[in-house]
């Protein structure tokens, strides 16, 4: 929201500097995002009076003697065709800064500093300037667009700074307006706040005009969709003379970035900026049937808007129609068929309130927007709708561009535009804040905010202006009071009236943190990746068409297709992370992520999907192997006081012989494996990678497992080492389990060597295990363990044809 200081000053006597005003606005809830000094690039340009001016023969130049008052008199070479003795022009002194222009004298190419120079052998001590060189155009200052020198008024004081004369000493506040204050999306709305924060009066708008006895009959307005248009005001203006707007209006519009078009159109734009009420002007001669009808569009109905774009409409779009056809897309843009032209002589002004949601939706759906639609989408109040029409009619008269008829139609749903009385308890207002704001301050603040407060005991009665639709109850009053009273009055307290509560992490949170810390201790770094992924990831992972991972929730409005699905696996992003690291020259490392996967119960979603906490670990580098990653799986198991079992498995993106499923107490909890070479090369990885995914949602059933101390053995343990010979197909786990099952006293079985080679038949291998026997109630007798060993050997032989290696 742009608000020029000069415009605000029309309504408030501002006696603080722009910087001070910026701070005041900031303190009461209006952050000035940028404070723009209008003539900030221009310096040391003064009024120069050309005393002598002689053409230099054979050139287009003139040699001038320019009086700059207190600054001296200078010889200036000037190439402009309108330089003449007796004229006053902006003179850029040596050291001045002005805009440099391109050869067309129009395009600004940057800021230049004026230096003493020589043209065609003649010294020149400064430069007489055009409007463009000062950053001005015809809208900002009349005549400034001329391709030559900018002629200054005759009464301009010689040697004086040109900035105040040309309106370049102005400031523009670019203010961020919060969504609860649509009333401040206007110069006058800001002026009200400025007045309140400075404790000054906000001068009333001039709404005066004289209605003639001329009436437009027959003429009628009907609103068929009062839900989308609670108020529609139309007023007929005749004897219209389309022309240029006065300089002051054109300047103001230019300062807030609005082009001047013609007096009548400019009035509507001026009202939009000054009051925040979008208005529209129809050329009445193009309205058929002497009527205005506000209704929902018919399906397929068409309109061409002012910018010559055609739209096919439907019943969710609101249109303004004459007796025959749509003439405006309500709140968004007028129709080309009733546009104000130079020939226009009669105008129907429209000021209306349209439902903000409808305007926003229509604007988005049609891809058509305007300052009006942007304004409506923020919310317009009916008080302002009424005031705006009066102000527009006032301006018609002030500009002398038409006569105000007595044909005025106001179709409304009975909403009051009078202030509404609100009674609140002073105690409750202070109760929100936690401090006691003195009554006198409450009264002062609310008076400044035009709320006419009266305090009687604990009862505060205010009259809420109709434009303050955000004021609903005592917390709103508390906010008004504190933002003007000052937040620095809020003193810190530490919930003296609150009950003591127990805080902290729950079991799931604690356990997840424990897992993370254990993985960190094992050399892994935690990564966080996006919760969305790409449909292309399914193909990267070679997932078959019926893979459960392909059943992913899609985002209706994703940023790109690559971020269009909710993750059903963490592995693809882990692989990308490893690949990125390798591309940056990091060829080994360990990364883990603990995040959710999203499993829909039905698609499209009809209930909350299953968000499953999942752990993904990725390790890469020449030093890593299936077994180093398996070590991390064991780290997780140890952290949770669990033990995992592993079975050979297959995954389409993993090595066919280096992949395993992970089980806990017989329940599958995840998988791990070496990345398939095809995927490795597709991701340009130079070193091998290994990945693991564990479903923590399943694992969480064992969180918080009770840890019991096992007493140390009373009697000495016995350890025996065996080298077995067996078929290559027999697994380590099978042997371990068979040994454990063969004897109750075995407390540990661990593999310490594997041999395959010429000493054994081709289909055989040798595995060597250490087995620990732990006595319980009594010491092992001399031959006890030998007996156990015999049992073990017998079982192994029977089950897997395993024998002791000779």
């Amino acid at each position, binding site marked *: 929201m742009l608000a020029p200081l000069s415009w605000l000053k029309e309504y408030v006597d501002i006696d603080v500097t722009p910087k001070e005003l910026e701070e005041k606005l900031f303190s009461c809830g209006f952050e000035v995002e940028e404070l723009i000094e209008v003539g900030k690039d221009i310096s040391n340009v003064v009024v120069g009076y050309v005393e002598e001016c002689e053409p230099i023969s054979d050139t287009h130049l003139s040699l001038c003697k320019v009086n700059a008052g207190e600054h001296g008199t200078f010889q200036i070479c000037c190439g402009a065709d309108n330089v003449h003795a007796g004229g006053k022009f902006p003179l850029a002194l040596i050291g001045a800064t002005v805009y440099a222009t391109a050869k067309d004298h129009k395009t600004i190419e940057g800021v230049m500093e004026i230096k003493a120079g020589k043209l065609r052998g003649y010294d020149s001590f400064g430069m007489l300037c055009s409007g463009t060189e000062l950053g001005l155009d015809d809208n900002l200052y009349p005549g400034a667009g001329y391709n030559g020198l900018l002629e200054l008024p005759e009464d301009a004081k010689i040697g004086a700074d040109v900035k105040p004369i040309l309106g370049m000493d102005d400031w523009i506040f670019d203010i961020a307006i919060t*969504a609860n204050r649509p009333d401040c999306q206007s110069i006058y709305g800001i002026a009200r706040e400025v007045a309140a924060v400075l404790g000054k009066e906000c001068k009333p708008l001039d709404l005066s005009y004289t209605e003639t006895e001329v009436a437009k009959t027959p003429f009628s307005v009907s609103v068929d969709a009062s839900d989308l248009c609670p108020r529609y005001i139309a007023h007929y203006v005749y004897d219209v003379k389309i022309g240029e707007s006065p300089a002051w209006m054109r300047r103001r519009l230019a300062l807030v970035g609005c082009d001047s078009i013609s007096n009548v159109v400019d009035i509507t734009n001026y009202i939009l900026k000054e009051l925040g009420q979008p208005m529209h002007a129809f050329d009445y001669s193009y309205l058929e049937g002497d009527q205005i009808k506000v209704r929902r569009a018919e399906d397929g109905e068409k309109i061409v808007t002012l910018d010559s774009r055609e739209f096919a409409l439907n019943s969710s779009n609101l249109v303004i129609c004459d007796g025959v056809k749509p003439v405006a897309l309500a709140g968004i843009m007028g129709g080309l068929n009733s546009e104000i032209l130079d020939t226009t002589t009669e105008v129907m002004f429209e000021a209306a309130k349209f439902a903000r949601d409808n305007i926003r939706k229509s604007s988005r759906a049609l891809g058509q927007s305007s300052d009006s639609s942007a304004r409506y989408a923020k919310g317009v109040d009916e008080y302002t709708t009424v005031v705006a029409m009066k102000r527009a009619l006032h301006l018609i008269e002030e500009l002398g561009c038409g006569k105000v008829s007595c044909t005025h139609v106001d179709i409304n749903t009975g909403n009051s535009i009078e202030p509404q009385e609100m009674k609140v308890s002073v105690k409750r207002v202070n109760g*929100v804040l936690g*401090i006691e704001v003195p009554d006198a301050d409450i009264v002062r603040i609310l008076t400044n905010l035009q709320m006419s407060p009266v305090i009687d005991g604990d009862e505060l009665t205010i009259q809420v202006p109709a434009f303050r639709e955000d004021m609903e109850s005592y917390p709103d009053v508390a906010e008004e009071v504190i933002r003007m009273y000052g937040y620095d009055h809020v003193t810190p307290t530490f*919930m003296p009236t609150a009950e003591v*509560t127990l805080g902290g992490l729950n079991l799931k949170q604690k356990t997840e943190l424990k897992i993370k*810390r254990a993985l960190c201790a*094992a050399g892994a770094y935690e990564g966080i990746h996006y919760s969305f992924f790409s449909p292309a990831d399914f193909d990267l992972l070679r997932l078959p068409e019926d893979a459960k991972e392909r059943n992913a929730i899609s985002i209706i409005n994703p940023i790109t297709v690559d*971020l269009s699905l909710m993750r059903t696996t963490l592995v693809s992003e882990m692989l990308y992370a490893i690949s990125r*690291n390798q591309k940056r020259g990091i060829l080994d490392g360990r990364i883990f992520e603990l995040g959710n996967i999203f499993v829909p119960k039905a698609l499209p*979603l009809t209930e909350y999907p299953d968000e499953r906490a999942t752990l993904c670990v990725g390790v890469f580098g020449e030093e890593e192997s299936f077994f180093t990653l398996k070590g991390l799986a064991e780290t997780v198991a140890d952290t949770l006081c669990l033990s995992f079992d592993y079975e050979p498995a297959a995954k389409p993106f993993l090595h066919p012989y280096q992949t395993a499923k992970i089980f806990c107490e017989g329940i599958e909890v995840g998988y791990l494996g070496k990345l398939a070479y095809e995927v490795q090369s597709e991701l340009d990885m130079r070193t091998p990678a290994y990945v693991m995914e564990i479903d923590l949602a399943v694992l969480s059933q064992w969180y918080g497992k009770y840890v019991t101390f096992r007493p140390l053995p009373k009697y000495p343990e016995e350890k025996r080492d065996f080298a077995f010979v067996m078929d290559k197909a027999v697994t380590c786990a099978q042997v371990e389990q068979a040994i454990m099952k063969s004897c109750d006293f075995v407390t540990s079985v661990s593999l310490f060597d594997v041999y395959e080679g010429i000493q054994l038949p081709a289909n055989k291998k040798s595995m060597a295990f250490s087995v620990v026997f732990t006595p319980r109630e009594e010491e092992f007798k001399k031959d006890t363990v030998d007996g156990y060993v015999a049992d073990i050997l017998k079982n192994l032989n029977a089950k897997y044809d395993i024998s002791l290696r000779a």
Partner: protein
Amino acid sequence: MAELNELTGKIAKIKQEVQNELEKLESSKSVYEYKKVILDGKTGKIGSLMKEMGKVPKEQKADYGKKVNELKAWAQSYFEELDTKFRQEEMRRRYESEKIDVTMPAKKHAHGNLHPVTQVRNQLTDIFASMGFEIYEGTEIETDYYNFTALNTPKDHPARDMQDTFYLSPEFLLRTQTSAGQIHVMEAKKPPIKVVSPGKVFRSDDDATHSPMFTQMEGLVVDKGITLCDLKGMLDEFVKKIFGKETKTRLRPSYFPFTEPSVEVDVSCFQCGGCGCKLCKGTGWIEVLGAGVVNNKVLEGCGVDTNEYSGFAFGIGLERIAMLKYGINNIKLLFESDLRVLKQIDD
């Protein structure tokens, strides 16, 4: 007598011989070996002297024994002296041979780090847990009702324009704010409520300073007599713990549909102490979070009696805190798992 004199002479001779040989020894090992040889009871030069006792006249035996023992004692102490000397010398040489360049790189045990955002999250949850807050994690996928409507942001509310929402269906969306958790907490639990709710949130924003996913931590307190001053007091404590005990807070008016009054909270710049620097863009203040007194409509919607209870809420962007604290200049770096980045932050 002749016997004794002869033997005495022999002892003196042996002493001389031993002395000569000992002087030739060069290591503790040779001392040890020589000692063994010399003192051997059967063959040793000194050890075997006692065997000569038989040859010594009876009355001189004592004298002879004494002399032999003196010789033995002398040899023993000589051996010890030499041994000590050689051992010291050998130790010195051993040490010398093991001289290293202490400036060579250390051998470290590889350990990883938690993600910077997790580190900040843990610091925050620790602080809030110590103040009696529970930690509630909501779901990333939410309904329109919990994310907006119940937070006083009905469908036509202009505040919805503040946040570009990812929709999954007309009803379901990716939560744009952890505030969604407020409602679930209040539906499940009666006051007193003190809860922080950390989690991922999503907005359709993707440029140099925005990431479509980031992490927030919402805080909610509902109890009797809670005021804006309590919000200020709690935030004062919190920022001091996170940014240092000199840190000050400043409240300024703002707007969120679910709080009234609403404030932005700035902290005094912890880099320049408030004098103005690059970090705080010369203002001396850094915006860190949004907060406010919980809107009565939100409380009433959850069945909380606003005549009895009131509350405050706040929302913190964890990436922002991490970036401020650790000087990380680009939010995207936090989601790339670049080990060069992750290795640096261990707080």
